[in-house]
């Protein structure tokens, strides 16, 4: 299996699974404007997943489409970060998960927009603009809720503590990253500079622990992904080939 295909699955699957998770909020947002913002974010992410998975399918060259990759792979074939399959929890956990991901994707997409593969570079440049917009909102909300009421502060701190062990995986490089000429560990400094605003402006404490759950990018997932896929894929699984 080519490294490019693997790498594209990692990018596409993280966008797809987070997009699906965020879409679970549709109709359940804490207030109307935020409900709309969540649905729009999900839509952007699913659109980005389409761009990455279309290219993955082309690179693979086995006649599969982006839809085939999304709807007909099992959990062990998914290459998304463990962070994005974490359950939505309360709104604080959802927006903290979004923030930790956005803060990572901004420097990664910046790096990829100068990639040797022109298709990767153009998808990265396209999606970088949307991602920067997402970060603006997720950072703003994390800071406001962190530096908000006693309850909102406690919930945001709990969300940060809960999700922190799932951030280390983003910076662990392997042979696939090396073959693509991308060193994820080099992104940590930029990520941390953004995340430190939770401390300085959001009055939250960054956890000390360096412990990292890992495996998502090579197909070892938590039990949560299976439930996500069951909901996302049931229609294609029970009615194979169903189309609009």
């Amino acid at each position, binding site marked *: 299996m080519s490294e490019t295909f693997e790498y594209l699955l990692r990018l596409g699957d993280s966008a797809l699974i987070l997009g699906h998770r965020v879409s679970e909020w549709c109709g359940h947002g804490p207030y109307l*404007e*935020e409900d*709309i913002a969540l649905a729009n974010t999900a839509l952007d992410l699913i*659109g980005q997943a*389409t761009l990455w998975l279309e290219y993955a399918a082309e690179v693979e060259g086995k006649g599969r489409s982006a839809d085939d990759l999304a709807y007909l792979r099992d959990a062990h074939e998914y290459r998304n970060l463990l962070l994005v399959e974490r359950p939505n929890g309360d709104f604080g956990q959802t927006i903290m998960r979004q923030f930790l991901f956005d803060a990572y994707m901004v420097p990664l997409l910046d790096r990829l927009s100068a990639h040797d593969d022109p298709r990767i570079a*153009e998808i990265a*440049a*396209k999606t970088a603009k*949307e991602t920067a917009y997402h970060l603006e909102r997720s950072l703003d909300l994390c800071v406001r809720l962190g530096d908000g009421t006693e309850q909102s502060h406690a919930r945001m701190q709990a969300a940060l503590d809960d999700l922190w062990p799932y951030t280390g995986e983003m910076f662990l490089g392997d042979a696939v990253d090396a073959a693509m000429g991308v060193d994820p560990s080099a992104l940590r400094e930029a990520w941390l500079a953004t995340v430190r605003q939770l401390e300085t402006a959001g009055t939250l404490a960054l956890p000390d622990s360096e412990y990292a759950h890992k495996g998502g990018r090579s197909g070892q997932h938590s039990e949560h992904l299976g439930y996500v896929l069951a909901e996302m894929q049931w229609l294609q699984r029970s009615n194979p080939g169903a189309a609009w």
Partner: protein
Amino acid sequence: MVAAMTTAPDVLRGLSAGPAHEVPGQARDRVAPGSDLAPIWGWLDQVPDPEIPVISLVDLGVIRGLAWSGDTLEVTVTPTYSGCPATAIINMSIQDGLRARGVQKVAITRQLSPPWTTDWLSEKGRAALEEYGIAPPQPAGGPSRCPHCQSENVSKISQFGSTPCKAQWRCGDCLEPFDYFKCI
């Protein structure tokens, strides 16, 4: 194989009432492959954006080029947002709009780079948006004034709105909420 591409601003400049602005819909003579692209830009400037019909697809800046390749008219289109559900409708509208004018073969190519920016909105489009009640994008990241009463006393309600390209704002003077076309 592909003839020199043309881009919108130069050909649209100076376009006035003429064949390009005829009422669409009737059966027409077949457009000869290789014929002048300027009127075709004018036809596309009559095709409305599916979500904000007061501006055309040319106003929106998504039509990046036109070229004849043999007997096929190649239309290069760039998406606004990656997940914008209007993308498929836009492609259909282009096909329908050009067929109604007598262009027999149309091929649509997606172009991602350079990524779409609101800088490509036409001046005509920006004015039409404001007239319609949508504040046009500003480099400062927020609307310069209320599209209803022109007050500069405006505040953000949400970074997102009813379509991927819009945010929600409100006016502190006339108290009306309004859409703002996001600047990206």
